[in-house]
């Protein structure tokens, strides 16, 4: 589904990604872990199409297409979804109206009929249950005055509405208490099928207790320096990141 080859990216003059290689297949969950500043969020941003980052080298192929050549909206229409680490507050735009525009622009792109108001509300109600989010929240301006947990739940709600082929969860666990973490993870797990894939970007292992990864990759200085199964995450939790740094220094 997703093939990243030798990806290099910088912002201003800081080289952040220094040759990433990653292959993600349908049905898989990959966790990207690593110490602060290792490039985890940059990788997520580059995949979503954030324009401040400049890709200097390498390629990203998504379902046979050149992802890097696409505008952010086209990536979303092709099936990429990024749950933001810090979801943006947008005053005056209600989540419902925004989602309706979003769902319908994506449907039109895929050659489907846009949903009318009734069908949209029906789908919305169904997905709201799935991620345990209240309608009163969705009537309000997008993320405005939402708590950290509400914002993250809203991200997963949007994911459920857009049914992406590849979801990238960028530090979705940050700022969540244990109950919110459970609700958000449950939502993600319910959305998992054998046809979609998930990349979980996280600093801590605890999210991976709920969303069980097939593969764990450790990112350090803009490169994947170690890959393994979920046991690697447990090892990182127990030993911290220093031993990885030492290994890299020795190599």
């Amino acid at each position, binding site marked *: 589904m997703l093939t990243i080859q030798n990806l290099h990216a910088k912002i201003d003059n800081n080289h952040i990604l220094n040759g990433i290689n990653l292959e993600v297949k349908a049905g898989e969950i990959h966790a990207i872990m690593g110490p602060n500043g290792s490039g985890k969020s940059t990788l997520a941003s580059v995949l979503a199409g954030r324009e401040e980052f400049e890709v200097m080298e390498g390629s990203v192929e998504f379902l046979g297409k050149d992802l890097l050549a696409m505008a952010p*909206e086209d990536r979303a229409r092709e099936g990429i979804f990024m749950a933001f680490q810090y979801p943006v507050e947008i005053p005056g*735009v209600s989540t419902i109206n925004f989602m309706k525009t979003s769902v319908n622009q994506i449907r039109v792109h895929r050659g489907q009929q846009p949903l009318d108001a009734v069908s949209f509300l029906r789908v919305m109600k169904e997905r709201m249950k799935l991620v345990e989010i209240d309608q009163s929240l969705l009537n309000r301006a997008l993320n405005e005055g939402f708590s950290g947990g509400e914002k993250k739940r809203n991200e997963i709600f949007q994911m459920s509405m857009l049914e992406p082929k590849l979801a990238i969860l960028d530090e979705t666990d940050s700022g969540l208490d244990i109950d919110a973490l459970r609700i958000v993870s449950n939502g993600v797990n319910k959305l998992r099928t054998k046809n979609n894939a998930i990349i979980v970007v996280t600093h801590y292992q605890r999210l991976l207790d709920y969303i069980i990864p097939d593969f764990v990759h450790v990112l350090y200085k803009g490169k994947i320096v170690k890959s393994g199964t979920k046991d690697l995450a447990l090892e990182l939790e127990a030993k911290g990141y220093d031993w990885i740094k030492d290994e890299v220094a020795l190599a």
Partner: protein
Amino acid sequence: MNLSTTDKNITSDVSSFIQRRVLPVTDELRSHALSIFQNLGLPGTKHEEYKYTPLTRELEKNFSFQHDRVASHVKDLTPFLIPGVEANVIVFVNGIYSREHSAIISPPSELTVLDLQEVLDAKNPEVIRHFNQYTSIKTDAYAAWNTADWRAGLFINIPDQSVVKAPIMIYYINDASAGEVICSNRNLILTGKSSEVTIVEKFNSFGTGNHFTNLVTEIAVAENALLNFYSIQNDKGNRYQYTNTEIHQKNSSRVNTFSFSLQGKILRNNLHLMIDGEGIESHMYGLYLLGDNTLADNHTVVDHKKPNSFTNELYKGIMDGSSRGVFNGKIFVRPQAQKTNAFQANRNILLSEKAGVNTKPQLEIWADDVKCSHGCTTGQLDEEALFYLRTRGIHKDSARAMMLYAFAGEVTDKIKHTPIKNYIDAVISERLQ
């Protein structure tokens, strides 16, 4: 005091123009206003109140003041009318009242509309008591020009307790297809005790000649009355305009003003609220959505003269192209106006590097037990929010429109009259596409 004049020539050109139009100037007030006008001279950009608004220079450059053009063969005004409203319609074409296009549908028990000059000539005591009492012709040369020169005007009277169901729509249409047009109009509106009325002024034009409208409207709002006042300025790039709206409020009255400056060359709005009573609640909303090289200048004054009143002002601007916005908001709280609540906010978004805004809040507070605040912000569209919307599959242009529409929505959502709101919403969303 000719220091502030850019050029004496335009003042004398306009003087001769006025004298040719209003000959002989026998009316005492008109000749008095004319001499004030000549003494003051039109304000140049050295004048504090016109620092960013070269209205005088632009008039000088683009008008000859040689022709008094009133004739027009305009028949169909439909494209300019706000659809879906059962309204009292009053139309001025080139500054002249058009009987053909006007119709008052409200019964005389709700409202009377008369020719202002006729009621002045008849020495109607109510009219004499209010006319020219609220406009400061001594300091404002454009108001003095209007007072000397006005060609046609309305006296609108809303009796006590009258709830006027149909709004009053006043259309100022300039037909500049034969060349430059210069209009001066003058209105006096008295709303009676506990009356309610909605008044809309709208400005449009035909033709490609330059045209200038100088409009002064004085409104006296009596005890416990409600006034909703809308100004819709969405013409073409050949409109030059000065409007001066003076609203005088008595005890427990409520006023909501809405000013939409959407298109034109130079639009200067002086909107003044005199809070001359207690228990008053007033809201002033403004939206300027500008492109090309439009300049919209809103000078507002809220003058709290008595205690225990509340005023709130929110003006928002979106500027694209080489357009310019100017906002100057004065709030005065006089020594006796204790327990005043007065708030003001001005927020701007600049969409292009060439667009600009000059904003200046000016609070002068002499009373000590008051709550007042002001704030102004100017920035670009939030790039992070734009990116967020795009990652949800929303096209860049729709995402941008969505955000701007939401920004404007803080003003348009306050419109109380549904057909007017629908009309403004449609104009704005079309502009933002």
